[in-house]
């Protein structure tokens, strides 16, 4: 059995030309059938123990193919591919081979599958987005499927991500994915790590690096420290960090490379927040996304269990929701009322300067202690901790000890005036892309709130954005931080805090317990605000350090 001819090429499927896809699928079909036949023949002939190993290897190879095919049958934006790959799976099953089936409940564990757009029922604009994304990556990941609640943002997001990972830039491709892995591993986000491990190998990265950061080149190891500080305590970044990276003799980074790396790190830190914040399920073709076991055994995926989500059945959630319907109905009403009040009586009750300053300090200090009570250690599905060093360094440590976060005044260094110029100077076009993304995320609104229409939500959005920046010590002189207390209740703050600072601890309970009457799309919207605000906060600290280094 020659390995060469059995090499499966998936890239033909990404073509927009249906005949190309057709031929690619046909060749995949033949390869799979050949492998299946081969396995069957081995089974039927006399059992020889020496073959066991090679047998297992080829079975493993086939299973990988089948899993990929399963993913295609569910997630390919092209109808013909979906149907055909489903058909192939069926025919393999008929031959007596065990085929996989998807685990979990759709792209997100928090959002019922029926709420999420089904591939195939999207409108033209979304289809274009899907096709673009599929053509670029050869897959339609769960993040995309959840973000498509907000297609306008998704478009900008995909464009930026595509540029960062695949277009012109100072860093080689495998470095980019490796930095993505480093950043995601910092938050133990096995979902992103898995995805990028595949991509990393695909672009020709050295598999040895994946055994741990100490196996990667010194240059990337040097980045570990920045990654750590940036993810958990970005305010501690100084120009010494930058200098250390730029002046490391043969392992030194160039300024352009560093900016690229910083953008990638912040992008993946915040994407990890999104992944946990929306409970993104593992991809179907990755570990934990599918099972070969027959359906009767268990209904839960491993991640559900480890996140303490077991026993949370759809039914229970619904009944719980019903009981408190009146309660949560008032929640929305009360929020609307507060917004109205704030709008009206802003001028009347003028807080003194000291009052304003102390409000910020109070909010900042309180944000330290806002934490969910359950602090069970999460064991990641894949051992991701080897991708970073110093596992003990996290946000948790200092929040317990109440470390002081210095105040960063946005009027002195803001994204629009300073950060943008610096990024665009060192990594052309990216400043523009990120700027657009920030703008879309910040200004996105449908003027709705739960069941209400024509609501001006700008105040609420600004409160969320500024609350996140407040947690990072970033202060807007022209904002009254008292508003945050009025608009964001405790369970919401807990959720925001957890998603932004320790995303790995987000549970379905947290997701369900804030804004109970709001739609899932609105909760995803909140997540978009969270990740963009977080990314901007991290970027601001990193870029300020770079600016200080340069002056």
């Amino acid at each position, binding site marked *: 059995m020659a390995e060469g001819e059995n090499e499966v090429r998936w890239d033909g499927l990404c073509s927009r030309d249906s005949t190309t896809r057709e031929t690619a699928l046909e060749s995949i079909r033949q390869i799979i059938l050949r492998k299946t036949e081969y396995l069957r023949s081995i089974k039927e002939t006399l059992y020889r123990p020496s073959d066991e190993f090679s047998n297992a290897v080829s079975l493993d190879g086939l299973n990988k193919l089948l899993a990929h095919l399963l993913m295609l049958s569910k997630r390919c934006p092209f109808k013909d591919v979906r149907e055909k790959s489903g058909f192939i799976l069926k025919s393999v099953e008929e031959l007596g081979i065990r085929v996989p089936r998807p685990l979990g409940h759709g792209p997100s564990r928090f959002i019922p599958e029926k709420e999420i757009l089904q591939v195939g029922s999207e409108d033209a604009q979304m289809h274009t987005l899907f096709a673009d994304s599929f053509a670029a990556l050869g897959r339609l990941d769960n993040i995309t499927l959840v973000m498509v609640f907000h297609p306008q943002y998704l478009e900008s997001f995909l464009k930026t991500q595509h540029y960062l990972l695949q277009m012109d830039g100072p860093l080689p491709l495998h470095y980019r994915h490796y930095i993505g892995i480093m950043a995601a591993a910092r938050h133990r986000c096995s979902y992103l790590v898995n995805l990028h491990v595949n991509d990393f190998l695909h672009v020709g990265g050295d598999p040895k690096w994946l055994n741990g950061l100490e196996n990667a080149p010194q240059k990337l190891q040097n980045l570990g420290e920045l990654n750590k500080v940036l993810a958990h305590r970005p305010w501690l970044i100084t120009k010494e960090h930058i200098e250390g990276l730029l002046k490391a003799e043969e392992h030194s980074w160039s300024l352009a490379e560093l900016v690229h790396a910083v953008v990638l790190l912040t992008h993946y830190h915040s994407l990890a927040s999104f992944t946990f914040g929306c409970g993104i399920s593992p991809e179907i073709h990755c570990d934990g996304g599918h099972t070969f076991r027959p359906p009767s055994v268990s209904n839960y995926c491993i991640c559900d269990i480890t996140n303490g989500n077991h026993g949370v059945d759809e039914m229970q959630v619904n009944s719980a929701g019903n009981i408190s319907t009146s309660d949560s109905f008032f929640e929305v009403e009360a929020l609307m009322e507060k917004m109205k009040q704030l709008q009206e009586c802003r001028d009347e009750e003028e807080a003194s*300067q000291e009052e304003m300053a102390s409000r910020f300090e109070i909010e900042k200090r309180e944000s330290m202690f806002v934490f969910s009570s359950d602090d069970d250690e999460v064991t990641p599905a894949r051992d991701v901790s080897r991708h970073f060093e110093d596992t003990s360094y996290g946000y948790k440590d200092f929040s317990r000890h109440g470390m002081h976060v210095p105040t960063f*005044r946005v009027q002195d260094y803001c994204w*629009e*005036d300073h950060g943008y*110029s610096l990024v665009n100077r060192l990594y052309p076009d990216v400043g523009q892309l990120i*700027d657009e993304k920030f703008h879309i995320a910040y200004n996105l609104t449908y003027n709705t709130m739960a069941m209400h229409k024509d609501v001006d939500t700008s105040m609420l959005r600004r409160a969320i954005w500024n609350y996140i920046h407040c947690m990072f010590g970033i202060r807007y*002189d*022209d904002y009254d931080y008292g508003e945050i207390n009025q608009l964001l209740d405790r369970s919401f703050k807990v959720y925001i805090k957890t998603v932004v600072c320790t995303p790995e601890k987000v549970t379905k309970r947290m997701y369900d317990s804030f804004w109970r009457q709001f739609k899932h799309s609105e909760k995803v919207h909140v997540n978009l605000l969270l990740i963009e605000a977080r990314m901007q906060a991290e970027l601001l600290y990193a870029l300020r350090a770079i600016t200080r280094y340069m002056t």
Partner: protein
Amino acid sequence: MEKMSRVTTALSGSALTGRTMHCHLDAPANAISVCRDAAQVVVAGRSIFKIYAIEEEQFVEKLNLRVGRKPSLNLSCADVVWHQMDENLLATAATNGVVVTWNLGRPSRNKQDQLFTEHKRTVNKVCFHPTEAHVLLSGSQDGFMKCFDLRRKDSVSTFSGQSESVRDVQFSIRDYFTFASTFENGNVQLWDIRRPDRCERMFTAHNGPVFCCDWHPEDRGWLATGGRDKMVKVWDMTTHRAKEMHCVQTIASVARVKWRPECRHHLATCSMMVDHNIYVWDVRRPFVPAAMFEEHRDVTTGIAWRHPHDPSFLLSGSKDSTLCQHLFRDASQPVERANPEGLCYGLFGDLAFAAKESLVAAESGRKPYAGDRRHTIFFKRKLDPAEPFSGLASSALSVFETEPGSGSMSWFVDTAERYALAGRPLAELCDHNAKVARELGRNQVAQTWTMLRIIYCSPGLVPSANLNHSVGKGSSCGLPLMNSFNLKDMGPGLGSETRLDRSKGDARSDTALLDSSATLITNEDNEETEGSDVPADYLLGDVEGEEDELYPLDSEHVHPEEPEYVLPQEAFPLRHEIVDTPSGPEHLQDKADSPHVSGSEADAASLAPVDSSFSLLSVSHALYDSRLPPDFFSVLVRDMLRFYAEQGDVQMAVSVLIVLGERVRKDIDEQTQEHWYTSYIDLLQRFCLWNVSNEVVKLSTSRAVSCLNQASTTLHVNCSHCKRPMSSRGWVCDRCHRCASMCAVCHHVVKGLFVWCQGCSHGGHLQHIMKWLEGSSHCPAGCGHLCEYS
């Protein structure tokens, strides 16, 4: 009123004195403003608000306006402005959205006068009316501009920019009621202060935020704007549409812009990020700043001309906590350091070159470097009388005219089109290409092809008549190339050996031998004066008359020996390669072995580095006779390709690379190959040889090159009815729901390949149109156009 104020200011500005100086502030400054009397300046920042007196030798702190025990955000200033009519009146914009006015005439320590808390967000800018005593304007992050009458407690009117944030507001100096505002989304709006309902005019000035604007003090309606897109633009607002008059490209985002008094075309700018200098530009010369002040160590945040009628004093405040007074005469002038040079190609290949006269003179003195001969090979040089160049420096203008025919690249186009690169056996390809080259009169290239054939196909089977034939007809074209190559690459000693060897191969008499070594000497001399620039000059073409004079070798003498001549050269570069380039050690090692095996007795001789020309000769013959495997030549072929590429004939290098394929590819490192491919493709595309370039891309094996065909394969189509881009499908427009591209022949929608006439824009299925035009020359749509299909 206006007149009066101008008179008063003009009077007080008669005698300004001072020097370039700076003083340390306690904190970074955000903005500065000058008092009307030009003797005081106010500095404002997050934690500083002070008035300094400008004295002859130094700044003297006069007043600290930050009083009170507790720091208040009201004092955290984003901007400050001093009234130009009233010396006691100041206004600041606070980062928390408060506008504060200050009255220096108040007897108490606290000079704070009024507090306007109407803005919801940071106020970015405040501006007093230039002639009205009580009118103050503010622009804020919340997207509103407010006009205050200082005699009242709150704003008189509010202007909504319908946008995220206002970055700058400026009253027009000449038009009483007009003010301009700039926005973060790139727009500039003009307002009439009496009409708060909507703006008079709006246009997009920059890509990204417009940080600042300034009205011209003299010219009515001139507005300068500066933006994050690193540009300063000057607009003429007097016309119906705002017209962009000048555009200055800076190196960083523009934070402030201020017209220079008394100098109509000058303005000063400073940047918000990265660049710390202040520049003064002459907007008519947008590439080099007229003056540059380099005192600051961090970004400059505020600039102000000290007096509205004195162009020589500039004040600036910076994030590095200093306040500076710059004197124009102390500024550094980048123009002086620049070497003004201009270079331009004419339509027919003429080249004009202008440079500072002193430079040209100096250069012509250095013979070995520039060498006039370089030009005269191709160009006649006419030195025009020196022309004055905008009064700054006199410069020399040289025009190099192309001699008729010599600059023509028709050989390139012909060669590219007629070469066969693949699809036939190697021998045929070589023969074909040799024939093409010969027909175009490029005999050296033709020879090379023939030799390649000999090396890689059937050695020795090429009739010698064939060679002689081509030689007999050859002009001197290829010859100088060979000469310069020899001398450069092999050094004089080696060169003479090959020369000897060459003549021997030709079986000439001793006299001939002497002859050629004699020429060699003259050549050597030439080379030394020439320097290394020479080969590139030859590339452009078939140089005739003069070449023969320079290299008076007779052509018969040189050409026939080329096949032999290449062989002896082998022995030396081979060893050099092994030592010098460790890039491909395995291959080279292999090749180094092969001669040892095949030419056994030649071995010893070739190992001895330079003994005598005669021993070398015998070696060469031995090698040639023993029919070496083609591998043996690969180093030589590689050198040959390198040589062609270095000469600029990258066409030859790439063609051979493609034709020989695997046989030579491994000897040349990927990067070089890629470089050749890309330059050749670039050339082809410049000559519009799209098909050839595509073929080359297809045939290339370099990954980076072949993926050129994969990039940007999307074809963007606009709907033929509504002219909007069609995003989802190429044939149905989403907006007007019509099928855009109908076939003129079958009247169906074209979903695949669509061909259309560029004359009448009718078209349809490729097949249909082709068929139609076989039978008729008129457009199938019946429009009467005579379509052409090529």
